[in-house]
């Protein structure tokens, strides 16, 4: 049986080999023009990304800021509503239905409306917040009720007030679920921000993607899309690392 370190090394190596095969296939298909001019070789995409690195960086920063803002707003609202539902059980069904309605609204319909309701540069933040909200709400709500019956009993016998129970038991118990929700929510926030930028934002990867499409610049389009995907993977990976530490401490 392989050592855990060796097993991890083998898994990473296999992953890297898989990515290398994918990139080589991309390059070969692009050079052969097998999928048309809208499928440029990988090397051309990288060249374009470097050539436009100032624009790429500015776009990435704008999208990241919108996504982070949306993430924080969406998660905060989800947290506040989940805690309200816990403290005031009479409101819980209504809050649950509201969350479902928010999740059911199609972004495509909401985008133009938001442009009129809020500034175009705020539309990405709002859509990112909406994208994060539902996953966070569900995760936090279930996390707040995840304390074991034995823990709840001990708190009852020790005479814990509702607030003390929330602060000392239910909120800490919900931390792993909060991270679970964040892990799902972070890529969703990025996607929401990019989508929101299609509706008149002054900068961002979404704007870059839509303008590259309209100007038929496939290399730039692929570079922007690749950067967005890379950013989503970095966020997912970073939260995965946090999750590992949180799981160790809170479970």
């Amino acid at each position, binding site marked *: 049986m392989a050592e855990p370190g060796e097993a991890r090394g083998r898994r990473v190596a296999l992953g890297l080999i898989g990515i290398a095969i994918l990139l080589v296939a991309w390059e070969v298909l692009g050079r052969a023009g097998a999928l048309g001019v809208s499928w440029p070789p990988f090397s051309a995409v990288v060249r374009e990304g470097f050539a436009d690195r100032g624009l790429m960086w500015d776009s990435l920063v704008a999208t990241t800021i919108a996504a982070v803002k949306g993430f924080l707003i969406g998660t905060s609202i989800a947290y506040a509503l989940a805690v309200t539902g816990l403290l005031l059980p009479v409101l819980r069904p209504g809050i649950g239905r509201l969350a479902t309605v928010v999740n059911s609204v199609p972004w495509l319909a909401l985008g133009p409306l938001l442009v009129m309701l809020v500034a175009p540069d705020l539309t990405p933040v709002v859509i990112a917040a909406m994208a994060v909200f539902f996953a966070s709400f569900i995760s936090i709500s279930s996390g707040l009720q995840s304390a074991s019956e034995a823990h709840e*009993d001990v708190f009852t016998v020790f*005479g*814990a007030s509702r607030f003390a129970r929330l602060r000392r038991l239910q909120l800490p118990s919900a931390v792993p679920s909060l991270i679970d929700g964040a892990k799902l929510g972070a890529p969703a926030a990025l996607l929401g921000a990019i989508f929101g930028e299609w509706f008149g934002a002054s900068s961002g990867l979404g704007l870059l993607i839509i303008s590259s499409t309209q100007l038929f610049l496939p290399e730039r389009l692929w570079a922007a899309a690749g950067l967005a995907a890379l950013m989503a993977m970095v966020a997912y990976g970073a939260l995965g690392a946090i999750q590992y530490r949180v799981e160790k401490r*809170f479970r």
Partner: protein
Amino acid sequence: MTEPRSDEPRTGGNKDVRLVGVSKRFPVSKKETLLAVDRIDLHVSSNEFLAIIGPSGCGKSTILRMVASLEEPTSGTVMVSGRPPHELALAHRLGVAFQDHALLPWLSSWENVALPYRLAGRKPDADHVAALLTLVGMEGFAGSRPKQLSGGMRQRVAIARALALGPEVLLLDEPFGSVDAVTRRRLNLELQRIWSELAITTLLVTHSVEEAIFLADRIVVLTERPGRIKLVRDVPFARPRAREVLTTDAFHALADELTLALDPEGSSPELDG
């Protein structure tokens, strides 16, 4: 070696537990209920250590849960120190340890023991918390998290936590039910030592006849469900009890009598308490 039970009166006020005509029914469907406990009359005197034993499902944990304010009796009354249990709980005057230690995994041993202070809105008394950890033999593990401790060590911390605010009544529901037999015996010795130092009114629910005899002043045997009092026996061993008590003829005779009483197909000794 057997010695007569000490008749020295224990000090303390009215820190007793009294159940009068207590029954408990649980709903099992919209129309049906299950009678778990039937007309229990029981008095645990101030500073007495009483053990309840009985067959699985006889309602012994239900009795403890009613004393702990976790269940309401369907009929009858439960009073702890002359007050309804939930009042004692809200006054932070009850201590409890379950089979599931229920320590908070994100807190150290020290913080877990200090938890009752926090729940009472009080600043933990660092000296007292340290003293409790020493009392349960965990002084070297104040900074350890539950995951870093063995099952027996976790139960020690759980007992220290139960004692943190000097409760009027200590409630123990199979506290050593999940540890191995050797550790269990060792923990029984520890618990006896701790109890002897604190002399606190204690209600223990256990499956183990040996544990009940070793720890308790008095033992109540329940019938099968619905749980009724079948037998009450005083334990005739002086304290402190050494491990050797477990090997005496008197111990075995009492263990045999209680085991027989636990067996629903065995003889039914007369009710005497």
